[in-house]
């Protein structure tokens, strides 16, 4: 395949950055999107140009490290991670525009690499169950209804890639946050901290500069794991229950 790539190049956090066009030939339809970028980088190195920086690690769709906006869509045209997107989803001769996640809480580090540590800070605010090592009762001490366990699992599938933020016209991290709140809130183990968790996480989210949710649903359409929008509603329900704003 032959492709025209327009890629965001930015030397560092302070560089204003620019779109640069590269023509690439000899791309296999069976290669993944990132392998296509690998090939481009090999060609750039051969020409003495610095390769395009992009994040990736597991390349099997689970670590959440990869992610670029392809032709205006977070992770590209298929509902999967960038690493699992394959070139057969494109046509020979296509022009492909590649940009980093755009959100002010995710500043660009270089080219297509952004800093997503804001997500870690949201988890630090309360996205956990306080259970010190060694203090746990037997795993069968608390049965969990299967439906609750399944819903918790569904929400726990979030890989923290940030596509929800990238796709959201408001730059909101509500889907990420709602997924964690739903995961922990569905389980009996998560109840003692449930109210405090939702308040602390949403306050941290807003403080970090993410936008608010207007329920457009772009996040769930971009989510490679298909986290449903109802986790956001669950978060709102929990917030109401926790008496947010009435303290």
């Amino acid at each position: 395949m032959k492709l025209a790539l327009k890629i965001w190049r930015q030397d560092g956090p302070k560089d204003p950055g620019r779109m640069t066009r590269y023509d690439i030939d000899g791309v296999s339809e069976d290669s993944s999107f990132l392998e296509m970028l690998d090939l481009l980088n090999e060609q750039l190195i051969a020409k003495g140009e610095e390769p395009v920086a992009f994040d990736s690690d597991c390349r099997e769709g689970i670590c959440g490290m990869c992610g670029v906006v392809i032709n205006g869509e977070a992770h590209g045209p298929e509902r999967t991670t960038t690493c699992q997107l394959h070139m057969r989803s494109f046509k020979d001769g296509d022009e492909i525009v590649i940009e980093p996640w755009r959100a002010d809480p995710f500043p660009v580090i270089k080219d297509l690499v952004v800093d997503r540590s804001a997500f870690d800070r949201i988890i630090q605010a309360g996205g956990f169950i306080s259970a010190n090592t060694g203090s746990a009762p037997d795993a069968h001490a608390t049965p969990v209804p299967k439906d609750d366990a399944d819903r918790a699992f569904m929400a726990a599938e979030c890989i923290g890639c940030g596509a929800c933020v990238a796709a959201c016209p408001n730059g909101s991290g509500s889907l990420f946050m709602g997924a964690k709140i739903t995961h922990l809130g569905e389980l009996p183990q998560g109840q003692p901290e449930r109210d405090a968790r939702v308040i602390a996480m949403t306050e941290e989210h807003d403080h970090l500069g993410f936008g608010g949710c207007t329920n457009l649903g772009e996040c769930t359409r971009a989510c490679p794991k298909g986290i449903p929008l109802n986790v956001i509603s669950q978060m709102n329900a929990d917030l109401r229950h926790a008496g947010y704003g009435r303290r």
Partner: protein
Amino acid sequence: MAVTGLLFIGFLLVHMYGNLMILLGPEAFDEYAEHIRTVGEPMIPEKGVLWVLRIGLLASLVLHVWSAVTLWGRAGKARTTRYVMKRPGYGNFYAKAMRWGGLAILLFVIFHLLHLTTHTITFGEPEPTPAGRVLESFSQWWGVLIYVVAMVAVGMHLLHGIWGACMTLGLNTSLKRAEQIRFVSILVSTIIVVGFLIPPFAILLGLVK
């Protein structure tokens, strides 16, 4: 935003009920209009309830707009560098239209108040009764057209607004519930739009005189 939005929906339903009175004849409509002013008399002075409602609605409006503007501002700050390429055809058109559509509705409401509440704007000779004003306005095709456009905007706003309000109130807790909410938002929006458009068309087509 959700709470004030739902208050507006309640208001719209009552307003719609009142409008439909005109189908029973101008007298019934005028009687209803008069009754709003005198409800609770003599315990409450004339227009007392009306003003309470007006102030309540105005406060809701301020809160609603203030929330919207805050969200809009946060969204702007959350993405100061825009994408070079936007996803073609993202989202539902009516959901995207919340902000500009909301502004359009706000302008219409001002127009509407100037037209039928303060009578600053008239569509012809000044008429002494509420029913007379309504009949005069909607016997002209462009009068109806203005209200049709406004109602379409209101319908779109409600379609996403009801969905969003249910989300914000935490009612969407499963995929099945999401479908129910979608259904209710379509149903309520349709009832309101159709309910509001029946009188103008009835008047235009000469069914009410």
